[in-house]
């Protein structure tokens, strides 16, 4: 059993590794340039090239992959000659990259376009912040002065003093890139394996916190839907299975077949049309004010939950029915009936336990479908969940966000399969004792 779990975990890691490599390769050959996409049609080629460099896209593919996987600050610190740390300088600040001096003071550098010189932002261990002019330039053999430092946007930058063309970098789409004047840029990364999925190319913010919030939102949606689906579906399936071939069975089966056939986007938009537009009962979109948890505005999630329920209930009900029919035709149930046991007792004590075994594992394996349904439902209602995040990122070709989201999804999918196998083993003594 233990070896089995280990093997499956190994398979999961292998899958995640393969998937991450494939996504990297695929995003490489994909048409369209994300830097061009951010800057728009009218940016010059130089501006596009600069942004590509700032995003690290000018480096070879394998360098980018390993930077993404294990980080690069341990490699780039040789250039800066100081330890590089990814931290909140003061408790209320955002998490940023800093160089650390021996006494614990955190420093960043900033290029002043007007004077062509550098200034240093220093945060002492006692949280006091000061900005001073920086004169620590190093001199090359040919007399030009240069300096490797960390800028305010998480790059290791090579600045050269008084050089022609050290203009400001492109500031596009309402985002200040927070860095300028450099000759070479290397975006700092801590690496996925060390818990940092990187910066979203689309929003220019760390992927991790956004992903966590989106995952939480999706999870609460899925959980509520699951709690609604299971009792309804099991009840319908058991009722139908107990009376195989009856009118009740036929109508439940037909209902299940039809509801599972209808695509989520169709039923979702249909529900908006009826409940939101014609009857004016519920809001047709789940737009949350930035950070509120979905549970605080229950009205907004009724329609998404309803759509998911409608799409999934039929599948589980059909599974339960099939399993119930099989069990009710088994010899030991006939024996129980012939023994004269009360019907209720036969169903609850003898049939149900065996009948529920198959559906429970099948349902766990069904999680891929549920994820698919959630992506569509989130797109229909504008619900800020993981699925919508993935859709937006994919449409934008935001590699970091896609990679991180894909890793979460694969871990979820393979993980639930593993859990399903374990549950099945514990439910089924025939496997447990062999």
């Amino acid at each position, binding site marked *: 059993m233990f070896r089995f779990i280990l093997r499956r975990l190994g*398979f999961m890691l292998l899958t995640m590794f393969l998937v991450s490599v494939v996504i990297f390769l695929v*995003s490489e050959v994909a048409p369209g340039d994300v830097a061009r996409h951010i800057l728009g049609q009218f940016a010059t080629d130089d501006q596009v090239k600069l942004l590509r460099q700032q995003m690290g896209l000018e480096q070879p593919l394998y360098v980018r992959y390993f930077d993404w996987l294990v980080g690069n600050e341990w490699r780039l610190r040789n250039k800066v000659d100081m330890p590089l740390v990814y931290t909140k300088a003061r408790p209320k600040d955002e998490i940023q990259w800093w160089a650390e001096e021996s006494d614990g003071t955190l420093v960043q550098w900033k290029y002043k376009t007007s004077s062509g010189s550098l200034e240093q932002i220093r945060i002492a261990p006692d949280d006091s912040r000061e900005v001073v002019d920086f004169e620590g330039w190093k001199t090359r053999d040919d007399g030009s002065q240069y300096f490797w430092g960390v800028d305010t946007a998480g790059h290791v930058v090579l600045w050269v003093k008084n050089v022609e063309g050290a203009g400001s970098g492109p500031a596009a789409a309402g985002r200040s890139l927070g860095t300028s004047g450099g000759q070479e840029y290397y975006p700092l990364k801590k690496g996925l394996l060390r818990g940092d999925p990187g910066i979203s190319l689309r929003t220019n913010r760390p992927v991790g916190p956004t992903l966590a919030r989106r995952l939480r939102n999706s999870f609460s949606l899925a959980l509520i839907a699951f709690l609604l689906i299971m009792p309804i579906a099991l009840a319908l399936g058991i009722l139908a299975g107990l009376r195989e071939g009856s009118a009740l069975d036929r109508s439940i089966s037909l209902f299940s*077949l039809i509801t599972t056939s209808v695509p989520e*986007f169709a039923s979702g938009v249909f529900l908006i*049309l009826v409940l939101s537009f*014609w009857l004016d009962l519920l809001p047709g979109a789940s737009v949350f004010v930035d950070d509120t948890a979905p549970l605080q505005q229950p009205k907004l999630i009724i329609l998404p939950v309803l759509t998911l329920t409608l799409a999934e209930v039929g599948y589980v009900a059909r599974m339960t029915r099939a399993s119930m029919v099989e069990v009710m035709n088994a010899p030991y149930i006939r024996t129980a009936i012939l023994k004269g046991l009360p019907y209720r007792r036969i169903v609850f004590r003898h049939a149900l336990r065996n009948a529920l075994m198959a559906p429970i594992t099948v349902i766990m394996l069904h999680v891929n479908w549920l994820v698919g349904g959630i992506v569509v439902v989130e797109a229909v209602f504008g619900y800020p969940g993981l699925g919508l995040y993935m859709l937006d990122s994919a449409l934008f070709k935001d590699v970091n966000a896609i990679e991180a989201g*894909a890793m979460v999804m694969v871990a979820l999918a393979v993980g639930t399969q593993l859990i399903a196998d374990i549950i099945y083993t514990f439910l089924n003594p025939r496997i447990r004792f062999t």
Partner: protein
Amino acid sequence: MSALSGGTKTAEKRPSRLRRLWGGFSIILESRVGTIGLCIIVFWVLVAIFAPLLAPRDPLSQDSDAINKGSSEQYLLGTDQLGRDILSRLIFGTRTILVLAPLSVLASVTVGTILGLTAGYFGGLVDEVVMRLLDAIMAFPTILLYLIIIAAIGPSAVNVVIAITFVGTPGIARLVRSLTLDIRTRDYIRAAQTRGEHPLYIMFVEILPNVRGPLIIDALLRVGYAIFAIGTLGFLGLGLPPPTPDWGGMVAEARKFIWTAPLNVLWPILAITSLVVGLNLFADGLREETTRYQ
């Protein structure tokens, strides 16, 4: 569906096959649910074939005087946000979906069969490598695969087919492999091997015909799912590029104008729902009746 029409052609030469085909056909007619499904499918197939005759106007022509108008004598189901006739777009949308769905299923059946036969017949390392790769694909949430594939290669009709083929292949390969593993041990395969037949001959001439039955039923089920997927991709903006009439895309477009033209969203929803439900009813009837006959 393509598999069925292929069967008809050979049936003309050998009457016994025609009778067998009719036998299979009457199986479906015995199930009421299956018959209803078949009727819905036939209806949409006829609409697709006779689209130019049925559509009252050009699905792409725009009328700037009638934007998001409700139903009128001129436009039976109203017009969309560009003043295009919704009925005509629906009718031509049938063609898009009824060509792409069987095509992508055919492609994944082809690729899946080849992979499944190879893995099942040769076994060993080949089997291990092919199946582990396919497992990795299957471990992936389907929708995510679609997202990544389409985001990478861009939305177009061919790419939708490629994406659906890619997603559908592992399931078919597994089915074919498991059937092949069983058939491989039969005596007639041993005989062929002793005769010194080429592995390709054994795979495609000896094994493939015996895999056909379950494969056709599986493929039929997959057509329904392919239509489901094409609609969803269209809705998410990953389907066919804009001017092409596409039901999923029509829902996405009309949803933006749900407050001014609420009914516009209803027609494509009804169309795709009826088609998918029809296919599933048909497949379910077929499955039920065939299992009963066995």
